[in-house]
């Protein structure tokens, strides 16, 4: 069962990444070394680290109060807000970048132009990643038995000592794990930097893309890819990957806020969170309907004017292309990821299975641009040229979605008590009918959530897709980035209309997932 996913990952991930390095080495090892040694490269690496550190800090700053309030207090609308904070995480990076361009870009709604500065990136990354911290830290906070702190108090600890010696150590692994995930996402972030950076901000990921796509300097791109991969591996090795431990039962320990201070605090955090989440999403819709301060639908008209000869990008067929590739990639990711989850769940966790588990997560921590470039190099030229089949995009997107599928399905499968099947058997159900009547209904929510996640991730995938999409038939995120890069108020409005469409598709998927109780799934 594990053979298929392992082979898939080796062929679709390791081979392309190796292809990047091989090309780099073939065309000029000395050139690679030169690139790696250049002061400019280290400047880029430094900026990449800097923006990732700032972004992670900002994410923690905004997310931790929200995580605390959502886990600790019971208040009206809590369920809704819990679902709401997940929305940014699944939003396509290009949509998020477009939203922040509309908020803090050259003609931004907030009147400050941060588009060429690191602070624009920090805000967009914060928006994208608050869900990670809220989920990972929140799940620990929500199950933290308050009696542990009480036990410490009874043993003579002051309130502060109890927090420092009991609560904090229990929380620390979750904080570290979530910070590491956010840092990695920001470190290899592409769509946000590419769109918001206005060509001025260079991270490793963006520079790899620039060297390949504009300067056609493959050895330089390979050198930067290698550097990035080394940095990621070094980070994982140094920090380690320890998840948050659950400290108690999955009992909801939330209580109602008491007194005006608690109520005020809860209200403030809730309002801030809602604004942070909703403002960027709302501005997209607004900007799609506005040109020069007037309300107009020309952007939307352009979006749906199929086959307009003056329009190099046809957004309507981009929607179709996106649905097609994301659908195919989701199916593939569910198949391969499902097999991986099944193998991991039913064969224990020891020994080499641990490395399989890590292997499945690998695409999450590495550069999508490297994967896209590698696939192009490995499978995009004779003898095996898959460029025009559309297959490469599906494969690349599936690769990116697999970690999410495994992360949702594996715990659900290993948490499924197979004695339910025994119970069904002794009640006269044949194995097939036992599966249909018991296992399917019990596992369906996890399957739906996994598929929803995979679909949201694949339809928004940008870094790998931008290499692989054919110029004539781009996916929606690629089309949006092209529209945004072109001059003209109408094109920009059309870009926002396309962003709104992509946002609505993603939001619809998330709402659909929430209906099958998202709360049970997802904890990286």
């Amino acid at each position, binding site marked *: 069962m594990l053979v298929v996913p392992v082979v898939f990952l080796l062929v679709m991930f390791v081979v392309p990444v190796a292809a990047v390095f091989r090309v780099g080495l073939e065309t000029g090892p000395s050139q690679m070394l030169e690139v790696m040694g250049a002061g400019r490269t280290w400047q880029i690496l430094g900026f990449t680290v800097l923006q990732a550190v700032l972004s992670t800090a900002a994410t923690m700053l905004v997310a931790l109060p929200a995580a605390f309030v959502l886990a600790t207090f019971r208040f009206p609308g809590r369920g809704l807000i819990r679902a709401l904070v997940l929305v940014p995480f699944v939003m396509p990076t290009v949509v998020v970048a477009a939203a922040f361009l509309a908020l803090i870009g050259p003609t931004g709604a907030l009147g400050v132009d941060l588009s060429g500065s690191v602070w624009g990136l920090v805000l967009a990354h914060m928006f994208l990643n608050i869900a990670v911290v809220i989920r990972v830290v929140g799940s620990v906070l929500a199950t933290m038995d308050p009696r542990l702190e009480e036990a410490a108090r009874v043993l003579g600890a002051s309130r502060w000592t109890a927090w420092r010696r009991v609560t904090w150590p229990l929380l620390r692994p979750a904080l570290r794990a979530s910070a590491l995930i956010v840092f990695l996402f920001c470190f290899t972030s592409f769509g946000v930097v590419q769109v918001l950076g206005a060509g001025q901000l260079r991270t490793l990921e963006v520079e790899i893309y620039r060297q390949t796509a504009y300067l056609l300097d493959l050895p330089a791109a390979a050198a930067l890819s290698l550097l990035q991969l080394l940095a990621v591996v070094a980070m994982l090795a140094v920090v380690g990957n320890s998840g948050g431990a659950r400290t108690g039962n999955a009992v909801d320990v939330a209580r109602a806020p008491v007194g005006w201070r608690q109520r005020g605090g809860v209200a403030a955090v809730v309002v801030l969170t809602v604004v942070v989440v909703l403002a960027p999403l709302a501005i997209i819709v607004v900007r799609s309907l506005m040109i020069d301060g007037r309300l107009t639908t020309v952007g939307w008209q352009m979006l749906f004017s199929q086959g307009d000869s003056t329009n190099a990008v046809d957004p309507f067929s981009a929607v179709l292309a996106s649905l097609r590739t994301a659908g195919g990639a989701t199916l593939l990711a569910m198949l391969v990821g499902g097999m991986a989850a099944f193998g991991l769940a039913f064969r224990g966790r020891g020994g080499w299975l641990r490395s399989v588990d890590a292997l499945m997560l690998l695409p999450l921590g590495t550069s999508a641009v490297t994967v896209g470039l590698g696939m192009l190099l490995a499978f995009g030229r004779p003898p095996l040229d898959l460029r025009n089949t559309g297959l490469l995009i599906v494969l690349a997107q599936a690769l990116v979605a697999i970690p999410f599928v495994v992360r949702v399905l594996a715990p659900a499968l290993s948490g499924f008590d197979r*004695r339910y099947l*025994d*119970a069904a058997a002794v009640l006269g159900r044949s194995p097939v009918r036992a599966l249909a009547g018991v296992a399917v209904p019990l596992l369906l929510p996890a399957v739906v959530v996994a598929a929803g996640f995979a679909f949201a991730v694949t339809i928004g995938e940008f870094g790998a897709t931008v290499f692989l999409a054919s110029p004539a038939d781009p996916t929606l995120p690629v089309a949006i980035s092209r529209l945004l890069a072109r001059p003209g108020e109408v094109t920009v409005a059309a870009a926002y209309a396309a962003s709104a469409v992509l946002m609505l598709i993603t939001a619809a998927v998330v709402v659909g997932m929430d209906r099958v109780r998202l709360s049970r799934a997802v904890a990286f």
Partner: protein
Amino acid sequence: MLSMTAVEVSYDEPVLHGIDLEVGPGEIVCILGPSGGGKSTLLRAVAGLVDHTGSIAVAGRSLAGVPAHRRGVGMMFQDDLLFPHLDVASNVGFGLNRQDPQRVAQMLELVGLAGYEHRAVDTLSGGQAQRVALARALAPEPDVLLLDEPFGALDVVLKAQLVREVQQVLRDRGVTVLAVTHDRHEAFTMADRVAVLRAGELVQVATADELWNKPVDAYVARLVGLSVLDGVAYPPEELRITAQGRWALQVTGRTFLDGRYLVSGVVDGESVTFGSDARSLPAVGQTVHIDRVDPAG
């Protein structure tokens, strides 16, 4: 009704060796033994959930090669294993060939939960859940009902009550039952006969009286609550504190149970329990001398 001959089960190593056991129609037999002794495995073999050698027959029909779902054998599990995605009625009706609300209502009434049809199973208390599990197991009218530590997860008071209730239901309906437990109170309360299982072998199959009066060995004697001193088994009422007693006992505990004061202690590493009257109850830690007395005299 249920007969087992030379039943053996092996996982990596043998778990059950040559089990021979007959359970008559309407009889309740309880397998008593420590955890890990293969009790649950024996039930799973009867239910067809594990492979075994030897033969198992129900109502004269051999179950060789018959899959679990065609055996006509019902089972109740330690943790109720009610299907969480179904309501109470759907759980109880799960084993019926077609929907039969009347039968479901009848079964729920039988276990004292009339009107609970549409409750979600996660809203039930532990005792209620086990009663629903009993209704579910009985609904298809199995030839034999297997109970796998069905009260193991309940608290003492609830357990005592539920054991009596379940026994009543089973007796009234004349169900043939093979149960397993590690709790001798449960076994002696429910069973017509008790089968002592030790390390995968049946040591003694007998009524409670026989086990108390003629335990085949010291192991069975200790398991049924007798004290073994110098190779002889004594019930609690036959031992008393006397100044010139043969055995020096260090007192480790005292309790009041079922109208009697009981003292527990250790003689040369052997656990001993005996009766005492309230006035001469020794303190914990004290060393006293005990000897056999004739309870009649």
